[in-house]
């Protein structure tokens, strides 16, 4: 009887240690908060919170454009900043010829951006109608 109780106590102790370590991991990655976010926020809102709105990849601005203009085709994106081009955000949209273009982190003075190599679209804002603008991010249409 006593040995049985001892065995149970030992098992209980070991399982408690396992459970505590597991709960620590849950706590560390804020598991329960994240489950709540996963239920209450859609994919785009979570993406929106992960990236900057208009800065670096500017995915937040792309989400805003997609919703506001109901974009259902790929629009070329030029990122004048030092971050990767975020055209992957439009991956599931169809390819269509368009006279629209998106400028992210627009600046004419970035030493790391090769203006001559990226000559498919004019870098002069005067050549476009501005359809939408937030800080250095633009949705443009060729005049």
């Amino acid at each position, binding site marked *: 009887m006593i040995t049985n109780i001892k065995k149970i106590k030992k098992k209980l102790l*070991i399982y408690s240690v396992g459970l505590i370590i597991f709960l620590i991991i849950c706590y560390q990655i804020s598991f329960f908060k994240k489950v709540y976010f996963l239920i209450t926020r859609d994919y785009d809102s979570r993406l929106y919170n992960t990236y900057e709105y208009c800065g670096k990849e500017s995915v937040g601005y792309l989400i805003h454009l997609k919703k506001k203009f109901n974009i259902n085709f790929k629009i070329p994106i030029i990122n004048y900043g030092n971050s990767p081009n975020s055209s992957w955000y439009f991956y599931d949209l169809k390819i269509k010829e368009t006279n629209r273009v998106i400028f992210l982190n627009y600046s004419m003075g970035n030493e790391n951006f090769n203006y001559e190599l990226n000559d498919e679209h004019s870098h002069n804002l005067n050549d476009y109608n501005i359809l939408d603008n937030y800080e250095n991010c633009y949705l443009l249409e060729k005049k």
Partner: protein
Amino acid sequence: MIELFSILIQILVVTVFCYFPKNAYSFIYRKKGDFFQCLETGAIFNIFILLCLSLFFRKYMNELLNIFLIIYFIFNLLFLVKDNFLNFNKKIFKFNSLIIFFFLLIFLFSVDLANNLKIGWDAQNYWLVKKQIFTNGGDILDLKYTPRDDYPYLGSYLWHMYSKLSFLGYEYFGRIFYIYLFVLSIFAISQINNLKKIENIILILLIIFLIYKINLFNGYQEILNFSLLILMTKKFYIFFKNKNLEKNFYLTLAPLVLIINSVIWIKNEGAVLAMIFLGSIFLLKNIRFHIKIFLLSSFMFLILGKYFLFDYIGLANEIQKGNYEYFRIQNFFDFINLNRIFLVFKYILFYSLEVLIYPISIIILLILINFDKKNSFILFMVSLLVLSSGFILLAFLLTSFPLEWHLWVALDRIMFQTSGFFIILIPLFYDFLKGRNLN
């Protein structure tokens, strides 16, 4: 709620695709495999099958590919049910705490991933672009239009396939496979010795506690190679321990060869990692010569196969194009000098605090050598450590990029990737502490 449910379904879908029939497992290893052993072998075969699919199916054969995937899924599902559920009454399938714990951990990390969707710099520039080629209906022949066409594409293809096989089709569902492989490899390695379930769980949690960061799954490919290196050392350890597996070594070593193949097709440095592994095997006296020749010739065959396939696809065959273009024998001392060596060591020391497996492995190896100098497997691990360190040192000393910048951005990833070789030391050390013989 739908997304949460889809994550659960995705984990089950990956499980079905990664399952390996028990009969086939016992045909290879001459013994019955448990759920995890079937799963780890299945994952290795699954990656190989997907590689073959990527090579075989052109963009106009999409429907055929879908039919093949459905058949593959149903076939595996039938075996999964037959092996584990039909004999439920005979208690062959033990719905044990370890299996629940396995799925719970994957679910936990998947939820974490779903809330940290950020894709890493290189992943956005290279790996995601390759994935997009497949997602947009392209095939391997279109990869030549992607940046860094010298980079292999298997990881991106797995990413694409598993996001395609998901309900909602979001890209991160593809990365759940990365999580799956990672957790599976940790489970596989912690079961090399017959421990009690609770000991296993604590060991697994300890290893995961040491390694896990959500950034590991931001689209970088290191996590895949890390997990495969863990499985590689495990498969070799099992072969090394059981001398009767040598009888049909070409069969028992087949999964090991497939892992080497996957590592080569995931990252360029995979070939070097495979060479380090095979080099260490070659230094072992108690591995027979014909087995070494078999492994070497398989490796040569795989490297040549990759070379010719890259040539056929139209991809560059240079390794790390641009990274080493300025290195010449004439300017040898510009690259290898005390200042640079000191700088590399400084960064290795600094990053060891981040990739904790390295200092822990060194401490474990020092203790184990002290107690058992003649243990061949420990010597094998030592040679892996020496060769890996040599590789890291040379990879950075010979770089054409500014050394400090290159170390800053890449050393932690290389160290993390190679640390997969040494995870096995943790369960071995636990065994040692319990007073068991490592042989």
